[in-house]
């Protein structure tokens, strides 16, 4: 086998993927900490999550700049082009996940006390599912694990069910006038967690596109072409 050409270019594509993975880890950790802050009523932790969002915003700018330079200078095609296209798209989803973690942390800070006991199991279930989805989506990106990508897509159905359950559960608790104000804020948290799940599905679908060149967005998990 002859020595490969374009070593620097190939290294830069690998670096780009490393940066996307590192950004994903920042967002995953932010989601995890925001949930801990919420359940523990830990305002200091909530503030640190909010502060940490700047690092995620800086990361996306750096990734976008790298993508633009690679397109302008290297004329990427085929898989290389998909590495860059998905670098753009996945980093956007990660940035949104980071924003939702920020929103959850801000709500945790504003609540200033542990949330009503009855709400905890509803949100914990939803939070665990969202956290699993982010972690799995980023692992399938790092390891190019397409069966895991499928699992993330399928998990979204469960996520929708949990969201519905949380929505009605919170509605019942909100019937009590003294809890109404605080529980209203928890509705938003349920929505943020559900959105985190949606962005994780997007990431998983972009990984499938990266590896197979198949566009499967907006199709059901079970009806993806050739899968």
């Amino acid at each position: 086998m002859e020595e490969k050409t374009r070593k620097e270019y190939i290294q830069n594509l690998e670096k780009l993927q490393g940066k996307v993975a590192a950004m994903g880890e920042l967002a995953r950790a932010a989601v995890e900490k925001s949930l801990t802050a919420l359940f523990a009523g830990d305002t200091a932790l909530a503030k640190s999550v909010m502060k940490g969002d700047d690092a995620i915003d800086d990361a996306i700018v750096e990734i976008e700049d790298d993508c633009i330079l690679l397109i302008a200078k290297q004329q990427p095609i085929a898989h290389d082009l998909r590495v860059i296209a998905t670098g753009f798209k996945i980093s956007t989803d990660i940035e949104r996940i980071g924003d939702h973690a920020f929103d959850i942390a801000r709500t945790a800070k504003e609540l200033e006390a542990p949330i009503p006991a009855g709400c905890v199991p509803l949100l914990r279930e939803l939070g665990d599912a969202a956290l699993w989805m982010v972690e799995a989506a980023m692992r399938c990106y790092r390891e190019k694990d397409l069966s895991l990508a499928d699992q993330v897509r399928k998990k979204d159905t469960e996520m929708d069910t949990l969201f519905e359950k949380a929505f009605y559960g919170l509605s019942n608790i909100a019937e009590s006038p003294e809890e109404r104000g605080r529980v209203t804020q928890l509705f938003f948290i349920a929505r943020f967690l559900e959105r985190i799940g949606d962005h994780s599905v997007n990431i998983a679908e972009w990984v499938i596109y990266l590896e197979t060149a198949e566009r499967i967005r907006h199709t059901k998990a079970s009806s993806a072409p050739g899968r």
Partner: protein
Amino acid sequence: MGKKMEVRDLNLFYGTHQALFDVSIGAEEHQVLALIGPSGCGKSTFLRTLNCMNDRIDGVRIEGDISLDGEDIYAKDTDLTLLRRRVGMVFQRPNPFPMSIYDNVAYGCRVHGITDKAKLDEIVERSLRQAAIWEEAKDRLKGSALGLSGGQQQRLCIARVLAAAPEVLLMDEPCSALDPISTMKIEELVAELKSSFTIVMVTHNMQQAARVSDSTAFFLNGRLIEQGATDDMFTRPKDKKTEDYITGRFG
């Protein structure tokens, strides 16, 4: 890193025809400077001024300053042989001598009086390795250079230049006669060579300039329109003419 070569207010005339107008440009040490522009824009003429190769053409007149490590290369006492050893040139078409691979690389050294076999062997191997052709050539060093493929011949010609231990490499469209894979090999080689040399490359291929160079200079009608970091030139050129050229809107 400082400027290895610097050109100030260069004007060049072929008889009464002016080919270059007030060109000022610098080549940073250990970087690749790409010269781009449409045919006839003056980029090859400019390249040849960097090792005084236009002097052989009748009626050429040159005004301005060109320095190598701060010394004027057009000074009356410049030793042209020494200058061309320090500033080597690789041409558009591979032009190996009709002799063996070994003798092609050793040729310049012999001209400069090196006859010691062990020393020559060392230089030949080092140069062929630097030019990334040693593995392909090592078992056929005594074979004719003309038996090599075009891409191999071009790398051999680069090895021949490197044998003279230059400081600056001038490359005049070094890939224009090569297939895509050979082109990529030369580009890879350029990326490696810049750690040891300063490289100025003329290319018709804008994508090649984008891929291999650290800074890019755009020439049009004998004038330097813009020079800047390649990252900037290909994402946010300052001059509309540069943008039109690199995006293929005229040529």
